[in-house]
């Protein structure tokens, strides 16, 4: 029982971390109809910037304080992501107005290759560290109730809290601002949106900036967990089932989806895995998402897919 609880909590935590990456996908899709496969690359790029600047800044400025260095690095990394957003709009998106989803998707794949190369050549391809003082050691709860207690990872808790805050913020952004509505309009029909004066360019820069920040936050958390290195990009693949399960257009969906996937894959790996040789969690996550989709093709909270003649 204690172990089951532990698995459950572990799954929830892992799910929160996926949500963080999933959020980036949802944001951009919701606001521009682009399925951004560069999200993984953006996470890596942001994390690399953060890690390297927090390493370089003390060298350049002779700073002592770790906190200050981290803050400056964060600011610079944010600036990098903003610049990136601006460049992407300027050089890519602007020329792809009104193109089909597949084309846009491909363009983001191109961007992701570019970012992978750029990130590594600017910042190197070693393992780097982000140290924002996350607690690493385990915490044991309910030791009186269960033998060995229930293990909780402190780092995960911090990450989960950050993810929750981010989601709350973003939901507000979408619901309370008129930009929110404009974003959805853009996602529906670029041309019509243009025709009534929604400035696509600006909108896209805004969205990609926001997505850049989410990528940075995800990058910092995953990076401080895993070390900043190329493999961070593969985290995106683990977040994808979350995105479709929750619904491509739903911010809360990303969270709920994350929790379901997180718990589902951990439970399956631990309780079914041993029977079939293990290593099933990743495809199980996808199959789980697929099963949900069979009942709700637009994901749990996604906007209904319109199909009318």
């Amino acid at each position, binding site marked *: 029982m204690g*172990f089951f609880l*532990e*698995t459950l909590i*572990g*799954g929830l*935590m*892992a799910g929160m971390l996926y949500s963080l990456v999933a959020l980036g996908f949802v944001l951009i899709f919701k606001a521009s109809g682009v399925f951004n496969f560069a999200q993984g690359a953006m996470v890596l790029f942001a994390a690399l910037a953060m890690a390297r600047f927090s390493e370089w800044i003390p060298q350049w400025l002779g700073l002592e304080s770790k906190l200050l260095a981290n803050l400056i690095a964060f600011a610079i990394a944010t600036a990098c992501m903003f610049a990136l957003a601006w460049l992407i709009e300027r050089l890519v998106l602007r020329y792809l107005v009104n193109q089909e989803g597949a084309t846009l998707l491909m363009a983001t794949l191109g961007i992701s290759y570019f970012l992978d190369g750029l990130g*590594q050549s600017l910042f190197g*391809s*070693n*393992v*780097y*560290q982000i140290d924002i003082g996350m607690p*690493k*050691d*385990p915490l*044991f709860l309910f030791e009186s109730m269960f033998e060995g207690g229930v*293990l909780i*990872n402190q*780092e995960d808790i911090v990450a989960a809290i950050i993810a929750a805050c981010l989601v709350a913020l973003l939901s507000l952004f979408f619901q309370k601002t008129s930009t929110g509505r404009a974003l959805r309009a853009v996602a529906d029909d670029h041309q019509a949106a243009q025709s009534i004066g929604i400035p696509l360019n600006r909108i896209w820069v805004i969205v990609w900036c926001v997505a850049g920040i989410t990528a940075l936050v995800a990058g910092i958390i995953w990076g401080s*967990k*895993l*070390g900043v*290195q*190329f*493999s*961070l990009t*593969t*985290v995106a693949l*683990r977040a994808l089932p979350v995105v479709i399960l929750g619904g491509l257009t739903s911010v809360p969906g990303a969270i709920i989806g994350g929790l379901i996937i997180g718990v589902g*894959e*951990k439970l399956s*790996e*631990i309780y079914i*895995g*041993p029977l079939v*040789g*293990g*290593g099933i*969690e*990743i495809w199980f996550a996808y199959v789980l998402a697929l099963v949900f989709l069979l009942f709700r093709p637009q994901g749990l909270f996604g906007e209904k897919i319109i199909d009318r003649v």
Partner: protein
Amino acid sequence: QEQYLPVLSYRTGPYAPNGTPTANGIVDYYKLVNERGGINGVKILVEECETGYDTARSVECYERLKGKNGGAALIHPWSTGATFALTEKAPVDKIPLITTGYGRSESADGMVFKWNFPLLGTYWVAADVIVQAIGKKEGGLDKLKGKKIALVYHDSPFGKEPIPLLQERAKMHGFDLQLLPVTAPGVEQKATWLQVRQSRPDYVLLWGWGVMNSTALKEAQATGYPRDKMYGVWWAGAEPDVRDVGQGAKGYNAVTLQHGTDRNAPIVKEILDKLHAKGKGTGPKEEVGETLYLRGVVSAAMGVEGIRAAQERFGKGKVMTGEQVRWGLENLNLTQAKLDALGFKGVLRGPISTSCTDHVGSGAARIHTWDGSKWAFSTDWFDADSQIIKPMVKSTAAKYGAEKKLEARPAADCSS
């Protein structure tokens, strides 16, 4: 005339942190040989090709480089997956494959795998040494009875290599072997470590590569699994694996491929002197002498010595062909004195001598342990138990030969 030695390396992608220092080591060693005046005067021509640790790209690199500049005399595939693919191609092209400490374990049998040279040790050697080390720690191999050992492994041919040997050992000593695969590249291991926490194995063997290693150590820390009960393969026991875990990895052990980290070895000093001091070095100076760097150096040295041995027979100061180098690699006889003379004093243990039947040449390794900031040897040498490994090699290789309908190498082939 130059001896052309292509290098398949990966300096980008998921395995770049581990691939880069290794490649630096190889290239530096070749440069050093040239500085020293070449192999009996024959200079080495180096060319790198980026594989990204991807098998298909490795094959492309191999095809691209094998015929260039008079033909590649030997190839280090630097990936077990690529080794499998190239094993099928090398006999056709007559290019020996050197797989120091990786590749297929059964390729130790030179009678079947004529072109493969898993010099210094195979994964079965590694696994065997680890089991012995654990046995020693417990106070005897018989104490392993009833113990539980988990193998957390990279879910690929590389990760699966040790399983047959461990199963064999488990049968012998009566310990329980729990298999926990980790899907490559291994960024998400929560479930694995929850399972470890649930089944509480006495030891965890870590057969990882790249990001999987540090992630495993971090998860171990997060789930409170004692790091000193963890033993890694030699590809999970280098600086990139533990550096950013820092104190969290303290006590973690890994088997070595003879050498560990050694910044003071004569060879390292020589490289620093002759190359890095003059700005001719590859990669950062600080990493010279670290485990993976040294691995590259050692592997490169094996190839160079193979060429030297070939020259002894086929003509000193000449460029050797792949076939000739193969003979050289098969007739290595590196005594401790020779190794010391090359600068490997304290790094490699002689004799390393190969033969037609034995393409490994040695079977000894030590354990080193991370103390929070550096690797240090923590045990003496262990010799892998050839009583166990030999028959396994023989039967597995024979099975391969039968499947491929290979004709047995005539005894005469060995002396030619």
